[in-house]
C-alpha cells in the first residue's frame, strides 16, 4: 500500500505544482514593480507627456531667422551659381569658343576639336562666346600649356582633360569648370564639373561601333560574370559562387576561366569592375558589350552622372561584401537583368560610342544648366533615343515628342496637318487638297514650306504638288501612324543596298521585296522631325539636301532611322503603277549620279549607315480578302 500512498503523494504534488504555476506566478509577476525601462526594449516608449514636449523650434524662431547678408563663395570652392555667368548665354544662347592650341597636338585631341567644331554651339569669335573651352594638353616635358589670353580668372571656362595626364597645374584653375575623364570622387564638384568617360585613344570621331547586344535576354549558357583584369583583359568565371570573385581575394581554385587578349569585349551577363581609376576603361567596354557593369565601390565619378541615371544600367556594389554581391547577382530577377542590359546599350549608343557624342553630351549638359527649368527632363536623358536627339527647344513636355507616349500613358493628337510642298508658283493642287481635306482627321491644309509654328498637330502629312492620294488611303495611313508615331508611314518606297561594283551605297526605286526609305512626297511623320531636321543636322548635310531634291528624302529617312533604329512603314497605295511613277520618283529607276553620291555623303556624314530594311507592308485587316466587300472598311483601297 505504500506505493499507493506514494502515488497519491505524487498526484497531490503535481496538482499543487500546477496550481502554483497557474495562480501564484502571475500574481508574483504583477507584484514585482515595473522593470527598469532600459531592459524593456519593446520599441520606443509612448510617453505620457508627449503633448507637453516642447517643439524643436520655438515659435517665431523658425520664420525669423536672423537676417544675414549674402555670403561670398569661400575661397577655393566654386559652384554653378557662384562661378558661372550665365547671363551672356541666356541672351545669345550657348556659344562655345575653343582656345587655339599652340604646337603639335595628338590625334585624340584633333578629334575633340573637330567634334566641337561640328557642334551647333560652336562659334569662331571669343567675344560672342559664353563658354570658352580650353584643351589641357599633355606635354612631354611636364610643363603645361600657358594661360590663354582671355582667361579672365577662369570665368566661364571649361578645361577639358580627356586623357588623365596629371599635369602640375602651372596656373590656378580659378573659376573654371573641369571636364575630366573619370575624376576621383573626392575632387569632383557635383553640378559644376563634368565627369567624362575615359576614352581609349582610338575612339572613333563619329558614328562609332554600335553596341554588341544582338538580343534582349542573355543567351542561355553565357557565363554570369566577367572580371576586369589588367591591360583591358577580361576573365570570365562560371556561375559557381565558390569561384573566387576577384583578384587577390582567394588563392583557391579559380574555377572555369578563360583569358581574353587585351582589347576584346567581355561576353557575360555581369562585368565586375574593381574600384580603381584605370579600371574606368573597362566600364566603357562593358557598356558596349551589353555586359551589365557591377562597380565595386568606385573611387571615381561615373561619366555624366549629373544627368544619366546609372542605377538603370549599372550596379554599384560594396567591394567589402563579395559573396553578398554574388548572391544578389545570381538571384536578380530576369526582368531587372533585361532592363539593365538594354539600358547599357541605349546609353552606349546615345552618349559614348564616338568622341563627337561625348563632346556634344558635355555641351548639352552645360546648355541644360543654363536653361534651368526648361532643360531636358530626366526621362529624355534616360530613355531612347536620348537627349542629343530630343531637343528641349521643341517642347518641355515629354508627351509632345513621339517617343514617350508609353511611359507617359499619353496618345498622339488624333488629327493631322497636311503639308503640301509646291515648288514653283502656279495653280494650287485643288484636287489634292479636296482629297486630303475629305479625311475627317485632317485639321488643316497648308502649303507653306516648313511652317513650324503654323502646324499645331502632332502628325504631318507631307505631300508634293504632284502627289495623288485618295481619302481612304490617307485615313488608313494616319490610323497606322497613330500606332507608330515615332516612325515614318509612307506610300512609296526606295531601298538601299551595298553596291559591290561601285564600292559604295546605292539605292533603287524599283519595286522590291524590301524597302528602307519612304518618300516624303506622300508620308506621315511626327512634326518633331521638322525641328530635329532643322536644328540638329550638321549644316553640311542640309546644304547637300538643298542642292539635290532627292537628297531631302534620303536625309529625312536617315535622320528618322538614326533616331528610331527601325525601318519606316509602308501602307498600300493604289495608283503607283499607273500615273505617279515618273514625277514621284525623280531620276527614275536608275537614280542620277548625284543622287547616288548623295547617299554616300550622308552615310559619311552620319559615320555609319542608319537605314534598316523592312519586308512587310501594313494592310487593312480584310485587304483583298475573298469576302464580301460590304464587310470591308477601306474598300476603295482595293480598286485597281
Amino acid at each position, binding site marked *: 500500500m505504500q506505493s499507493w500512498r506514494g502515488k497519491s503523494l505524487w498526484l497531490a504534488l503535481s496538482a499543487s505544482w500546477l496550481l502554483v504555476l497557474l495562480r501564484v506566478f502571475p500574481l508574483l509577476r504583477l507584484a514585482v514593480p515595473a522593470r527598469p525601462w532600459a531592459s524593456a526594449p519593446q520599441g520606443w516608449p509612448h510617453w505620457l507627456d508627449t503633448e507637453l514636449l516642447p517643439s524643436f523650434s520655438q515659435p517665431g524662431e523658425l520664420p525669423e531667422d536672423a*537676417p544675414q547678408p549674402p555670403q561670398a563663395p569661400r575661397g577655393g570652392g566654386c559652384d554653378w551659381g557662384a562661378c558661372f555667368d550665365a547671363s551672356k548665354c541666356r541672351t545669345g544662347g550657348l556659344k562655345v569658343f575653343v582656345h587655339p592650341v599652340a604646337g603639335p597636338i595628338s590625334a585624340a585631341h584633333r578629334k575633340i576639336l573637330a567634334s566641337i567644331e561640328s557642334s551647333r554651339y560652336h562659334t569662331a569669335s571669343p567675344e560672342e562666346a559664353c563658354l570658352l573651352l580650353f584643351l589641357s594638353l599633355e606635354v612631354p616635358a611636364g610643363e603645361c600649356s600657358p594661360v590663354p589670353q582671355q582667361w579672365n580668372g577662369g570665368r566661364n571656362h571649361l578645361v577639358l582633360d580627356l586623357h588623365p595626364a596629371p599635369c602640375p597645374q602651372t596656373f590656378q584653375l580659378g573659376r573654371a569648370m573641369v571636364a575630366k575623364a573619370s575624376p576621383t570622387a573626392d575632387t569632383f564638384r557635383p553640378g559644376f564639373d563634368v565627369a567624362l568617360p575615359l576614352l581609349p585613344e582610338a575612339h572613333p570621331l563619329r558614328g562609332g561601333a554600335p553596341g554588341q547586344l544582338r538580343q534582349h535576354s542573355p543567351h542561355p549558357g553565357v557565363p554570369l560574370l566577367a572580371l576586369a583584369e589588367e591591360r583591358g583583359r577580361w576573365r570570365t568565371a562560371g556561375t559557381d559562387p565558390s569561384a573566387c570573385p576577384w583578384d587577390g581575394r582567394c588563392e583557391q581554385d579559380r574555377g572555369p576561366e578563360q583569358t581574353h587578349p587585351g582589347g576584346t569585349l567581355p561576353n557575360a551577363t555581369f562585368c565586375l569592375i574593381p574600384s580603381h581609376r584605370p579600371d574606368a576603361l573597362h566600364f566603357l567596354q562593358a557598356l558596349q558589350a551589353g555586359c551589365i557593369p557591377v562597380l565595386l565601390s568606385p573611387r571615381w565619378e561615373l561619366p555624366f552622372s549629373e544627368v544619366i541615371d546609372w542605377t538603370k544600367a549599372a550596379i554599384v556594389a560594396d567591394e567589402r561584401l563579395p559573396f553578398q554581391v554574388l548572391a544578389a547577382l545570381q538571384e536578380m530577377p530576369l526582368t531587372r537583368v533585361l532592363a539593365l542590359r538594354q539600358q547599357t546599350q541605349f546609353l552606349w549608343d546615345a552618349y559614348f560610342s564616338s568622341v563627337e557624342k561625348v563632346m556634344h553630351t558635355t555641351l548639352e549638359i552645360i546648355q541644360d544648366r543654363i536653361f534651368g527649368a526648361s532643360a531636358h527632363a530626366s526621362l529624355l536623358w534616360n530613355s531612347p533615343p536620348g537627349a542629343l536627339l530630343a531637343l528641349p527647344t521643341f517642347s518641355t513636355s515629354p508627351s509632345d515628342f513621339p517617343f514617350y507616349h508609353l511611359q507617359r500613358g499619353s496618345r498622339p493628337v488624333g488629327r493631322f496637318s497636311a503639308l503640301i510642298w509646291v515648288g514653283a508658283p502656279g495653280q494650287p493642287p485643288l484636287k489634292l487638297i479636296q482629297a486630303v481635306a475629305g479625311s475627317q482627321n485632317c485639321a488643316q491644309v497648308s502649303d507653306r514650306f516648313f511652317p513650324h509654328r503654323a502646324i499645331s498637330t502632332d502628325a504631318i502629312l507631307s505631300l508634293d504638288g504632284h502627289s495623288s492620294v485618295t481619302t481612304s488611303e490617307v485615313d488608313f495611313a494616319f490610323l497606322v501612324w497613330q500606332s507608330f508615331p515615332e516612325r515614318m508611314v509612307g506610300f512609296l518606297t526606295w531601298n538601299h543596298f551595298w553596291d559591290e561594283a561601285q564600292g559604295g551605297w546605292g539605292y533603287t526605286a524599283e519595286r522590291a521585296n524590301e524597302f528602307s526609305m519612304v518618300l516624303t512626297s506622300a508620308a506621315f511623320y511626327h512634326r518633331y522631325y521638322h525641328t530635329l531636321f532643322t536644328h540638329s543636322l550638321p549644316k553640311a548635310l542640309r546644304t547637300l539636301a538643298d542642292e539635290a531634291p532627292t537628297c531631302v528624302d534620303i536625309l529625312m529617312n536617315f535622320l528618322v532611322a538614326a533616331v528610331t533604329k527601325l525601318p519606316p512603314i509602308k501602307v498600300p497605295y493604289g495608283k503607283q503603277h499607273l500615273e505617279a511613277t515618273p514625277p514621284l520618283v525623280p531620276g527614275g529607276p536608275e537614280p542620277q549620279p548625284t543622287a547616288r553620291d548623295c547617299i554616300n555623303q550622308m552615310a559619311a556624314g552620319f559615320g555609319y549607315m542608319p537605314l534598316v530594311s523592312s519586308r512587310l507592308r501594313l494592310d487593312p485587316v480584310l485587304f483583298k480578302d475573298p469576302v464580301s466587300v460590304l464587310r470591308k472598311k477601306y474598300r476603295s483601297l482595293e480598286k485597281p
Partner: protein
Amino acid sequence: MVDEVYMLSVFEKSAGYHSVLSLEGLPDPQRTHVMWATSKDFGMSGLRFGTLYTENRDVATAVASLCRYHGLSGLVQYQMAQLLRDRDWINQVYLPENHARLKAAHTYVAGELRALGIPFLGRGAGFFIWVDLRKEREEEAACVIMCASVKYNIRGPALIPRMKSKHRIYYITLFSIVLLGLIATGMFQFWPHSIESSSDWSVEKRSVRDVPVVRLPADSPIPERGDLSCRMHTCFDVYRCGFNPKNKIKVYIYSLKKYVDDFGVPVSNTISREYNELLTAISDSDYYTDDISRACLFVPSIDVLNQNTLRIKETAQALAQLSRWDRGTNHLLFNMLPGGPPDYNTALDVPRDRALLAGGGFSTWTYRQGYDVSIPVYSPLSAEVDLPEKGPGPRRYFLLSSQMAVHPEYREDLEALQARHGEAVLVLDKCTNLSEGVLSVRRRCHKHQVFDYPQVLQEATFCVVLRGARLGQAVLSDVLRAGCVPVVIADSYVLPFSEVLDWKRASVVVPEEKMSEVYSILQSVPQRQIEEMQRQARWFWEAYFQSIKAIALATLQIINDRIYPYAALSYEEWNDPPTVKRGSVSNPLFLPLIPPQSQGFTAIVLTYDRVESLFRVITEVSKVPSLSKLLVVWNNQNKNPPEDSLWPKIRVPLKVVRTAENKLSNRFFPYDEIETEAVLAIDDDIIMLTSDELQFGYEVWREFPDRLVGYPGRLHLWDHEMNKWKYESEWTNEVSMVLTGAAFYHKYFNYLYTYKMPGDIKNWVDAHMNCEDIAMNFLVANVTGKAVIKVTPRKKFKCPECTAIDGLSLDQTHMVERSECINKFASVFGTMPLKVVEHRADPVLYKDDFPEKLKSFPNIGSL
C-alpha cells in the same frame, strides 16, 4: 569515450559506482569524453536529453554546432533544469524508489530464468539481463522468450507493469496534470511579451521626466570633428548590415537618458516633440530592431534637431559615451536647424566623427555626397493647418514672397520687381499693426492688407524661397504643400533628398546674383510645364515633407538603397506621382533592336496523343528555313511518346519534353531547351500554314520582337446590353488578339506567363482547359502597352475550305466561355489592356501586280 548512461541505475548497494570523472586526474584529459543521459536513469528516452563532458575545445565546438540541428526545445530545457536542480528529491525520493523497483524486477526475472535453467549474467545494475540462449535449439529459444513475455503479462507488475483500471485512472490523471503543467509553463514563457505589448503599455507608460540621469564628467572624451572625406565605402561599416533576404537595414534606437554635467545642469532639452515623433516613426517601421547586436544603423536618442537648444561640447561627450559609438560608425544624427550666430554653419557643429548626418540646410561645401542625407526643415504648420489641395492652373499672383525675415538688400530687389510688374508680384512682410500673439505667425501683410499665411500661398503660381541665415527654410514645405512652384534662391543649397528627388520637375533654382531677372526667367517657363511642376510640388510634399514620419522614412530608405543597391527604388518610384505611375507602361523590351535572322526560332508543339497529326506538323514546320529547334511538349502522362525511330527525320534538333500534369500552361513554360529568343507556339493540328507563311511570320516578329505575332485575329467588344465584354470571332476590320494556335513571341513572355501572371488566371486557365491564348494576349498587351500584329489573311485554323458557312458553324457555348474569360481577366488586371488596331502585316508585294516568282513570299496561304 566513456558512456555512463546507467550511472544512477546501480541498485546493488554493494556494487557501488565510480564514475571516471571521480578519478583524481583523467588519464588523457584531451582525449577522454564522458557521456550521460536521462533516458535510462530517469526513463525519459523520449526527451532526447543528454550531456557530454569533455575538456577538448575542438570537440566541444564541433558538437555545439550539431546542436543547431538537434536542439532541445525550451520547454524540455526548462523542465530538465528544474528536475536536476532538485537534488534532495532525486537523492532521497527518486533514486531509492527506483533502485528498489529495479531490484524487485531483477529478482523476479532472475528467479524465473533460474527455474528454467537458462544461464544468465545478472549484475546489480541497469534494467536488463544478459541471457545465454546458445545452448537451446532455436524454436525452443523463441518459445522461452515468448513464454516469458506471456508470463509477464499474466503475472502482473514487474518490469512492464500491467495496469489495473485503478492505476490507469491514476496515470491518466497524473499525465494530464503534467501536461497541463507543461502547457502552463510554456505559456508563461511567451505570455509576458503579449501582456507587455498590449495592456502593460499602460502600466509602463512613463513621463519623460523620469528617465535615468547620466552624469558626464567634464573630462570625458569628445569625438573628432566630422570627416569631410567620408564615403559609404570608407566610413560605414557595412558588415553590420550583412546579407538580408528582405534587403532591409536594421535600426536600433538608444534608450532615452537625461545628460547632466558635473554641476547637474542638463546638457540639452531632453527631447523635443518632433524628435520623439521621429523616433516613434522609426520604431514603428520595418527597419526597427530592439537587438543592439543585430543593428546596422544606430540612432541616438540625444535630440540634436535644433543646434540652438544644446550645448555643443557636452552633447558631443554624450554621444561619445554611447555603448556602440565606436567613432560614430553607423550612427545617424538628425538635425534640421544647424549652425548658430554669428556665422551660421550649414552643418551641425557638434563634433560627430564618422556619424552620418541627416541635415536640413546643407550647402555643397559641407554636404558629403553619397554619405550625408539632406532633409527638409519640418514646418509645424503642416500639422496645425488644414489646407485642402488646390488643382494646378493659373493663379492670381504670378510671383509671391511670403518670408518675413528677408535681408534688406533682397527685399529691395523684390520690391523693385513688384514696382515693375504691379499686380502679378506680391511681396509680403511681417504685420506690424497686429496685436502681439502667436497668431502673428499665420498672418502676413502687404501695406495695410492682411493675408492668412499658408492660405495665401495657394493664390500664387511661383513662390520665392530665399535663404535666411540658414539655407534650409521651413517655408519650402509650406510652398510645396500649396502647390506653388518654389523659386529657390539660395546659392549652394543642397535641396532636400536631392540624392533621389528630381527637383528640376518641381522647382526653379535661380542664382542669388540673378535675383533681379527672376521675373523674366520665370516667364519663359511654358504654362503646361508650370502645371506639371505644381502637381509635382504637391506630390513631393505629400510623399516626403508632410510629416516627421515621412521625413524619417525617406531618410532611412535612402540609406537602405545605398546598402542594398540591387533592391533600390528607381527614379520613377521616387519621383513619379501616383497618377503617372498608374498610366505609364514600361515596356520590358524597350530597346529598338532587330534580332539577327541567323538566330532563328524554336517551335514548341503542344500535343496530347494525336501522333499522326503531330508528325505532319513537325514535317511541315521543319521546312521553314529559320527554324532552329523543335520542341514537342508531350502532355499525356498515361501514354509514352513514340519511340525515337518513329519520329520524322528533320534537319534541326528535335526534343521531347514530358510534363508532369496535363495542363494548358505547359505550352508557355520557359523550358531550358529554348535557346532562341523567338518562340513559335503551334498546336499539333495546325497543318494548313505554309512554309512561306511561317517564315514571313518570323520576319515580322523580328521587326516587332516585343509583340505577339499571330495568324487568325480576334476581337473583344463591349456589349452595351449586357454591360460586359464580348469575344468576337467574326471577320471584322479590327483585331485585338491573335490565337496562339500558331504565334511568334519573345521567350521572355513564357517566363512572365509562368511566374508573373497576375491573380489566379493561371489556375483558372488550367481548371477550364481554355483561354490560355487570351491570357497570353492580356499579359503581353498589359506589360508592353502595344497591340498584337496579325500576319497574312488567315482567319481560322479549322477547316480552311468551308469559308462560305462561317458564322453558322460557330459553337455557341465556346463563344460564351471565351467571353467569360475576357471578363474574368479584365477584372483581374483591373483594366482592359488589349489594344485594337485595323492593320495586319503582309509581304511588301502581296497581291501586287508583280511576277510571282520574283516575290520573296509567293505562297502566302488563303483564309
